[in-house]
């Protein structure tokens, strides 16, 4: 960023700019994903048009929805625990914010390029469970509590495959720093030919698949949406939330989807790098965000495609899939990657 603006900014100025950018990216990303996939793609898959009234092709529908949410009365259930109830959506959104701290969109265009960046992102993602449990318990509602319980069991079970799937990439790249993972892929060679780098999806396809399934479960999206299953427990932990507090949950879910799609593109698709250019060039600070946006949309399309086309799993099937299929597969992937890494 400093390179493109050709001026030297103080630490607090840089920090302020980064905070504003992240605070803008989360709602924008959430709205783009919500409109393009949740409203339009799902509608087309179901042979209907979706929103058409607000703005051209209904593009302003979510803005209208957002304004509607902000106008609503701030309702507390009478027997709810006010503080816990009010703080829960904030905790969920905080976890989303922390995810963006380490997500790189260029060689220098990152909020904080931590040495253990990937580890930090996975730890930050695990914080949202606390918020979900707070919402479930603080609402003083049976269905909310059941939803919170289901969510906690599910998020704990699927955190393991999420972490284990990423380890294959870490072994191959030899670093936890997300920017160095991008560079390792940019400098990689395909059978001695370095023309397009080496995106890790070629060798870590199993890891990529497990990662996407686990992300789907972490987001509590169908087919893993038992915590909010409207036909069983009428919305789960979100049942008592209206207005801007519900908006927080919505932004948390879609903002996290956007961030996880970004992390998946960094780990498996080469991040902000495009073949043919010098990966250390400062130009990547300018084109990197656009490259990342395209890759994020591609990965999100996959995530939401699953969301709209698979029926909901049962609670025991969900746990079985995590513990008996995904975790053993991910462990096997780690073993094979480690052996190959040592031998080659």
């Amino acid at each position, binding site marked *: 960023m400093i390179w493109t603006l050709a001026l030297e900014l103080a630490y607090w100025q840089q920090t302020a700019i980064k905070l504003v950018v992240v605070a803008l990216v989360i709602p924008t990303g959430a709205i783009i994903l919500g409109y393009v996939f949740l409203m339009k793609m799902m509608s087309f898959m179901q042979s209907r048009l979706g929103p058409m009234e607000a703005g051209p092709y209904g593009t302003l529908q979510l803005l209208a929805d957002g304004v509607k949410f902000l106008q609503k009365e701030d309702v507390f259930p009478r027997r709810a*625990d006010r503080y816990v109830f009010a703080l829960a959506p904030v905790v969920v959104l905080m976890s989303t914010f922390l995810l963006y701290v380490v997500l790189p969109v260029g060689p220098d265009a990152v909020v904080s390029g931590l040495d253990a960046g990937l580890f*930090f992102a996975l730890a930050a993602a695990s914080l949202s469970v606390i918020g979900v449990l707070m919402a479930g318990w603080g609402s003083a509602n049976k269905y909310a509590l059941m939803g919170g319980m289901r969510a*906690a069991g599910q998020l704990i079970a699927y*955190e393991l495959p999420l972490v284990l799937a990423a380890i294959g990439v870490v072994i191959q790249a030899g670093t936890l720093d997300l920017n160095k993972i991008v560079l390792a892929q940019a400098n990689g060679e395909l059978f001695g030919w370095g023309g397009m780098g080496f995106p890790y999806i070629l060798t870590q396809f199993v890891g990529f698949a497990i990662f996407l399934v686990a992300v789907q479960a972490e987001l509590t999206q169908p087919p893993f949406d038992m915590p909010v299953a409207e036909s069983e427990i009428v919305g789960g932990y979100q049942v008592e939330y209206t207005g801007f507090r519900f908006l927080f949950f919505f932004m948390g879910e879609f903002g996290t989807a956007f961030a996880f799609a970004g992390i998946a593109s960094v780990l498996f698709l080469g991040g902000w790098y495009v073949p043919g250019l010098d990966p250390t060039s400062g130009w990547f600070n300018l084109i990197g965000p656009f490259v990342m946006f395209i890759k994020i949309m591609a990965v999100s399309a996959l995530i939401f495609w699953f969301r709209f086309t698979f029926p909901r799993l049962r609670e025991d099937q969900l746990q079985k899939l995590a513990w008996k299929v995904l975790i053993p597969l991910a462990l096997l992937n780690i073993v094979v990657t480690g052996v190959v890494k040592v031998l080659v």
Partner: protein
Amino acid sequence: MTVLGVLVAQNIAFGVIAAIMVFAALRLVTTRNVVHAALFLVVVLGGVAALFLLMGAEFVGITQILVYIGAVVVLFLFGIMLTRTRIGNEEGTDHPRRLPAVLAAALVATITIYAVVTGFGDAELPADTRTTTAEVADSIFSTYIVPFEAVSVLLLAALIGAIVIARRN
């Protein structure tokens, strides 16, 4: 920024984090609601992680978040909410034997303070205490490999023991 050899920003941050942690720790033992106690524990553990990050111990700080907040406290909350889910003040959060509890707490505090004071005394930390993940990994898997593996086996034994006890019925 350093004034008279003291890192100003770090010291202010330490003071703020420490004050939040002390407040949360006091509320943790005085609150009359078990779920609130668990949530204050989250604040205390988050403060510990923040202190680790402040010291440049990135990997340890993140592990603190992932393991303690993301897993241990979540299991606490899960257990509490499954068994006792009342909102508001609860009966029986106090224990009648206060004196032994005070003695035990005082003993632990004395030992900890004594160990820190005799161990470090007036020694000052170097200005840059940052450690990378690679350094942590290298020391665990070379110098400290035997204690590390011993602790791993111990944890595995505890895990199996817990399953055996739980499955007896």
